[in-house]
């Protein structure tokens, strides 16, 4: 069984119902199935080997979804590429993944071409693919042979070596999670999901596959709505959106800008958020204006397929309180170990481990990194059982609830993105004019800070950095130094640097 069975099922039950809609067009379940079959058939000619990666230059549109499902139908997996990244970074991802083909939705920039030529992948235009024939026999045959262990998608995240890591997820993990997710929160086919998350974020996996599973509808909210969000709530009401599964940062846009003073959602019933710790003061704005909606705090890294813990907000929280991480979804094992490998006691902090079908297949073409974090369950010496060592730290409160506390390493969450500070440092250090650079993060103020030794001023350094990393990885505050302070062990003293920064405020 694969996620394509969801598509067949919903296309049979609700052929004329809208499956996905964006600001330009929409597809019914019948059309979605038909488009996927055509893409599957056409791709077969250029990518005949199953379990191959196919890159998609994504946009916030229906076509992206048709591509994903066409690729999955052909037993290959999709690698969504955000085209707003610098082409250098896109090149790095393409080189690493080496996709069998790259699909453009009419959005391939000329500057990408050398990178696509370099990996010798055919560049296919979506509109051309759709003009082709479909071969129902071939499609059926592929479904007969498909395994739930086949990879479905691969998502890139910042890596500490400067090269993005690509998390590979199988059909099986999605098939395991989605019915549990939909069941836990009582979704049905009348649900209208208001999609905010870009399709290269695993938050969007919940929108896409919950809808397919239920035969529900996803409205892809145009990015422009989030820029000047007066339009946002209007659009949500017009499209009768009932459920939103958003990044914390997107929810904060609405509450920080006091949009609800002007207009409030009229059809919204369920609100899910994840990606960062939700500030209670921001959540309270939502609850004040929409007291009857259900609010759910979700936790989970991409490596365990969407989420493993959830907490339904069941009481009011004061702004200085923390939201609990809650309990595991059905069929997910979550445990918390201290540095001695023992389960944590109240008042203690420990690392979050996850076991179960939800686990990623690993990092694509990266056995070393995979081995570091997908390890034998430390609590089980008796038979092979993988556990994901998340690097996220949680505290067991005296009240019996678990709370997110921090990261083990230099990974941060900034502007809704998961970033390794070393990723930025590596790229800064690669510049000829920079001798040494160090990055810090001021969590409460949400500022990315850089100290560097170098020959050029910071504007010029940042302009060069902009060509290498996405916009959200550009430091907000920069200090050019003659030397960097070191501690007794000769390592750069980050605490001393942070003190210099704080003094400058």
């Amino acid at each position, binding site marked *: 069984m694969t996620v394509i069975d969801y598509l067949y099922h919903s296309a049979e039950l609700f052929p004329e119902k809208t499956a996905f809609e964006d600001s330009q067009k929409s597809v019914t379940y019948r059309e979605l199935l038909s488009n996927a079959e055509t893409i599957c058939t056409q791709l077969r000619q250029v990518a005949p080997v199953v379990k191959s990666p196919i890159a998609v230059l994504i946009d916030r549109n229906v076509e992206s979804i048709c591509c994903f499902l066409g690729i999955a139908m052909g037993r290959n997996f999709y690698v969504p590429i955000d085209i707003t990244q610098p082409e250098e970074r896109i090149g790095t991802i393409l080189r690493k993944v080496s996709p069998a083909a790259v699909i453009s939705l009419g959005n391939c920039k000329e500057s990408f071409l050398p990178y696509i030529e370099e990996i010798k992948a055919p560049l296919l235009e979506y509109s051309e693919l759709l003009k082709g024939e479909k071969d129902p026999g071939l499609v059926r045959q592929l479904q007969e042979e498909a395994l739930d262990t086949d990879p479905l998608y691969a998502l890139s995240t910042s890596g500490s070596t400067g090269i993005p890591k690509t998390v590979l997820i199988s059909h099986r993990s999605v098939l395991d999670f989605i019915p549990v997710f939909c069941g836990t929160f009582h979704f049905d086919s009348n649900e209208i999901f208001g999609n905010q998350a870009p399709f290269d974020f695993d938050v969007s996996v919940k929108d896409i596959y919950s809808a397919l599973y239920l035969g529900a509808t996803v409205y892809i909210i145009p990015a422009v709505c989030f820029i000047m969000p007066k339009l946002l709530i209007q659009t949500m009401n017009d499209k009768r959106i009932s459920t939103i599964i958003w990044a914390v940062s997107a929810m904060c*846009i609405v509450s*920080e*800008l006091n949009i609800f*003073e002007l207009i409030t959602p009229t059809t919204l019933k369920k609100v899910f958020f994840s990606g960062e710790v939700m500030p209670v003061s921001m959540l309270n704005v939502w609850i004040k204006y929409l007291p009857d909606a259900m609010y759910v705090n979700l936790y989970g890294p991409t490596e365990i397929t969407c989420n493993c813990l959830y907490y339904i907000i069941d009481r009011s929280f004061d702004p200085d309180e923390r939201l609990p991480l809650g309990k595991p979804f059905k069929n997910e094992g979550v445990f918390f170990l201290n540095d001695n490998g023992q389960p944590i006691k109240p008042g203690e902090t420990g690392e979050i481990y996850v076991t179960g079908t939800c686990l990623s297949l690993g990092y694509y073409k990266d056995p070393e990194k995979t081995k570091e974090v997908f390890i034998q369950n430390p609590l089980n010496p008796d038979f092979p059982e993988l556990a994901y060592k998340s690097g996220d730290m949680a505290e067991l409160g005296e009240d019996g609830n678990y709370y997110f506390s921090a990261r083990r390493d230099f990974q941060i969450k900034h502007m809704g993105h998961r970033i390794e500070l070393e990723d930025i440092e590596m790229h800064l250090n690669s510049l000829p004019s920079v001798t040494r650079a160090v990055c810090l993060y001021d969590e409460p103020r949400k500022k990315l800070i850089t100290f560097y030794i170098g020959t050029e001023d910071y504007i010029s350094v940042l302009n060069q950095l902009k060509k290498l990393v996405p916009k959200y990885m550009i430091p907000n505050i920069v200090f050019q130094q003659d030397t960097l302070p070191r501690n007794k062990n000769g390592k750069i003293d980050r605490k001393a640097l942070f003190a210099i920064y704080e003094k400058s405020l």
Partner: protein
Amino acid sequence: MEKILEILKAIDPTIDYENIDNLIDGKVLDSLQIVTLVTEISNKFDITISPKYLEPKYFNSVDAIWEMVQDIQDEL
């Protein structure tokens, strides 16, 4: 005016704000940067930017932002 420039520089130091008049329409700033901008302006000038001002024309340039801030201050 200087204060606004300072706030903007902290959001993205590489943009030449003095010579740009399409900060929003030209998608120079993204949604999260706009939120930071609105909150920082509110804090630094001790004003509340009501949602009615959340339109591109009030945020497209340093001058436009400065005018909006003055308008809000006058209303007080």
